[in-house]
């Protein structure tokens, strides 16, 4: 903690010094930056309003926040506009810097009032916009079939892609981003080439099922999302100007990062240290990372369905899918069915149901398990969560599988194993992902039979000079054994570690990744370790008293996260929000759940309890049998009142 304060002071002093002796002032007033500048201004003004207690808050967070680069890593040093950059596919105005805005205080009174006003205004705007576009969309719709998902290539020809590079990163997602940041930090003049099969520069996926749908108003700036504090930020980790053109990389004395987009590596000659692109262009490398991520699974019942049905069924993973779904929703649908009860299915169901209330569509969620997040949460909590998801307006159909599918004029009819039939104009299949290990066979790399994914050691190394990170990695966790993890933070953590090791660190996987999910205003949780509902669990919840209902606190907290623009942003009063708890005061509002394997804690869920991840890490590291987990739960301070 001391370090963090010092860090801030140090940089401040550096800048003061820089300013005082700075020889020239930059006077770049390119008209092109003007648009961004205005956005930046907003961010910056709020930055200047920072109070000293913000420093305190930062240090409070610090212990629980592992030192990795993330999504959110705000780049306060750079001017706000740098944080987001339009992708080349769209001329998007550049959004401002993210989180460094206002002190993150819970000034609900003020924010709420503004939020409600904004909501009203934006709803009106949205309504008008919606009306206008709906008509056009409907006209277009008749002749238009769904666009094919073919990535655009940048550069267009592989001749412009370097044929020799020190660091080659295959895959352009979060793990790759995290790796190149690590590499450039440790090897400042490094030349890094990223080969991505998407058309976009690296971007973050979590907002695609969360914040992106909470944005109110017409999307004048696509691929930007509004954060809980009302400021906007781009999905893109770095703006386009951060990257070096592929053609120029070779001649850059200080190196840089280039991203060849829309290109696929088909094979690696590991011993010869060569990667082959789809058109046989060869890239010789010194160190290589595979971070190809994962792809959503589909169900056979849809894969085998007719073209007309497939037109109305989609998977959800990337920006393309997000934009397509947005278009479908704007096109005036009345009902969407979501298949799957895990993270993606449940998050999307909640997010879309909320928006559907304003836009006139309904969400039905169908899944195999008995409750939402049934493979993660213990059953009682899963049931409770389903109740909350229903409160968000989602029609939940648990214990069900789609056995057959047919078409009835404009709607897909889902025939469930219960005999029930559900019809919807569009179906989203969110039944998990599978690791992208297409390179394994041609490159003679080993994959794991049980978990899937490329097999690597504790240093994420598959072979000499070859590392693997992110979703597609089956790695050896020195504490918890062999694992494969499909979460954003794991991509960050493992990408970072791989990057360090590519520059010679030789470090094992020790720092645990975490994950988080939000389902409506009353359910938000973070978790770490092995969180699997088939394990025995011990949940310790705060018993509520009359004056302290966790739920009221929880809703406040979550509403804050969801930005004050939500119509329902007003903290729910305890009296109206109580969903008839099991007994007086016995509700799962706030708590901590321990997952045990051979009586040792291997996973922890922090249920509506925030800022305790460092304690959870300590408990996991302890690897010990506890006689009374209630004593351990005390360390999480779950009763803490939050004004």
């Amino acid at each position: 903690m001391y370090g963090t304060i010092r860090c801030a002071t140090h940089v401040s002093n550096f800048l003061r010094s820089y300013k005082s002796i700075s020889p020239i002032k930059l006077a770049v007033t390119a008209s092109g930056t003007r648009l961004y500048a205005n956005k930046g201004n907003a961010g910056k003004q709020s930055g200047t309003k920072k109070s000293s207690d913000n420093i305190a808050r930062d240090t409070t967070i610090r212990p629980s926040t592992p030192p990795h680069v993330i999504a959110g890593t705000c780049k306060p040093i750079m001017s706000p506009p740098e944080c987001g950059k339009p992708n080349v596919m769209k001329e998007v105005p550049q959004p401002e810097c993210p989180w460094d805005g206002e002190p993150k205080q819970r000034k609900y009174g003020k924010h709420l009032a503004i939020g409600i006003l904004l909501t009203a205004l934006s709803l009106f705007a949205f309504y008008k916009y919606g009306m206008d576009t709906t008509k056009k969309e409907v006209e277009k719709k008749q002749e238009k079939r769904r666009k094919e998902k073919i990535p655009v290539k940048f550069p267009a020809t592989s001749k412009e892609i370097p044929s020799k590079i020190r660091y080659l990163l295959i895959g352009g997602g979060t793990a790759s981003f995290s790796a190149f940041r690590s590499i450039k930090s440790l090897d400042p003049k490094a030349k890094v080439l990223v080969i991505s099969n998407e058309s976009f520069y690296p971007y973050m996926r979590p907002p695609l099922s969360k914040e992106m749908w909470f944005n109110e108003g017409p999307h004048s700036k696509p691929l930007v999302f509004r954060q809980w504090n009302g400021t906007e930020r781009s999905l893109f980790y770095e703006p386009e100007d951060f990257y070096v053109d592929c053609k120029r990389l070779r001649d850059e004395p200080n190196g840089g990062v280039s991203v060849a987009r829309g290109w696929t590596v088909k094979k690696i000659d590991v011993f010869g240290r060569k990667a082959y692109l789809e058109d046989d262009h060869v890239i010789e490398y010194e160190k290589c990372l595979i971070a190809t991520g994962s792809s959503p699974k589909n169900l056979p019942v849809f894969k085998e369905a007719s073209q007309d049905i497939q037109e109305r069924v989609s998977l959800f993973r990337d920006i393309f899918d997000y934009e397509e779904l947005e278009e479908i929703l704007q096109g005036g649908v009345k009902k969407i069915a979501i298949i799957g009860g895990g993270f993606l299915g449940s998050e999307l169901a909640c997010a879309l149901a909320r928006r559907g209330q304003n836009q006139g569509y309904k969400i039905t969620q169908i899944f195999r398990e008995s409750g939402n997040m049934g493979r993660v949460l213990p059953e009682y909590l899963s049931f409770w969560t389903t109740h909350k998801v229903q409160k968000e307006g989602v029609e939940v159909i648990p214990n069900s599988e789609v056995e057959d599918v047919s078409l009835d004029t404009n709607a897909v009819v889902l025939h469930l194993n219960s005999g029930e039939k559900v019809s919807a104009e569009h179906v989203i299949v969110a039944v998990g992902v599978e690791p992208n290990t297409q390179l394994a066979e041609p490159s003679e790399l080993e994959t794991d039979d049980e978990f899937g994914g490329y097999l690597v050691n504790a240093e994420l190394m598959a072979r000499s000079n070859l590392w693997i990170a992110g979703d597609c990695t089956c790695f050896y966790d020195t504490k918890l054994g062999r694992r494969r993890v499909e979460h954003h933070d794991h991509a960050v953590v493992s990408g970072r570690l791989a990057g360090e090791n590519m520059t010679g660190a030789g470090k094992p996987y020790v720092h645990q990744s975490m994950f988080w999910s939000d389902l409506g205003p009353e359910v938000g949780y973070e978790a770490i370790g092995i969180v699997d509902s088939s394990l025995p669990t011990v949940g310790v919840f705060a018993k509520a008293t009359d004056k302290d209902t966790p739920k009221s606190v929880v809703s406040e907290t979550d509403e804050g996260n969801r930005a004050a623009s939500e119509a329902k942003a007003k903290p729910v009063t305890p009296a109206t929000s109580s969903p008839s708890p099991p007994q007086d005061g016995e509700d799962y509002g706030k708590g901590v759940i321990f997952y045990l394997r051979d009586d040792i804690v291997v996973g922890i869920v922090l249920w509506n309890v925030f800022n305790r991840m460092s304690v959870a890490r300590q408990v996991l590291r302890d690897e010990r049998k506890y006689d009374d987990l209630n004593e351990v739960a005390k360390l999480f301070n779950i009763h803490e009142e939050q004004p």
Partner: protein
Amino acid sequence: MSSCKQVGKDKIIFATKEDHEVPSSVQLPDAEPSPGLILSTGEINWNCPCLGGMATGPCGVQFRDAFSCFHYSEAEPKGSDCYDAFKTMQECMSKYPALYNKDNNDDDDDKDDPLEALANSSDSLNETEQKPIEHREAIASKGS
């Protein structure tokens, strides 16, 4: 009073505030070290997420030179011997207005200085990771 029940393999404890106010009998190992920008050795941690893309972007090398010069400067005032490094950094940054230029329509002073934003918000440099959850944590911790 705290209560406890078992549902299949899952145990559920509802703990009262009073019960949890009694100090825990459990002692945990030390927290994982979380290195900031300056390591305990006094060296600069260039992989500190607090630097964002600063040390890794197109002017990363120039930034590192300037920052190192300042950090290790023994001149009085500190950093006053870093004129050249600062100048080089600034020249580089001027080539990337979209990355380093800030709002020119700012009401504040020093409007043309691309790094001004940092001076104003350097405390936020501490934030190691900033995903939505952290901000919620921030909200939650605010009250405590």
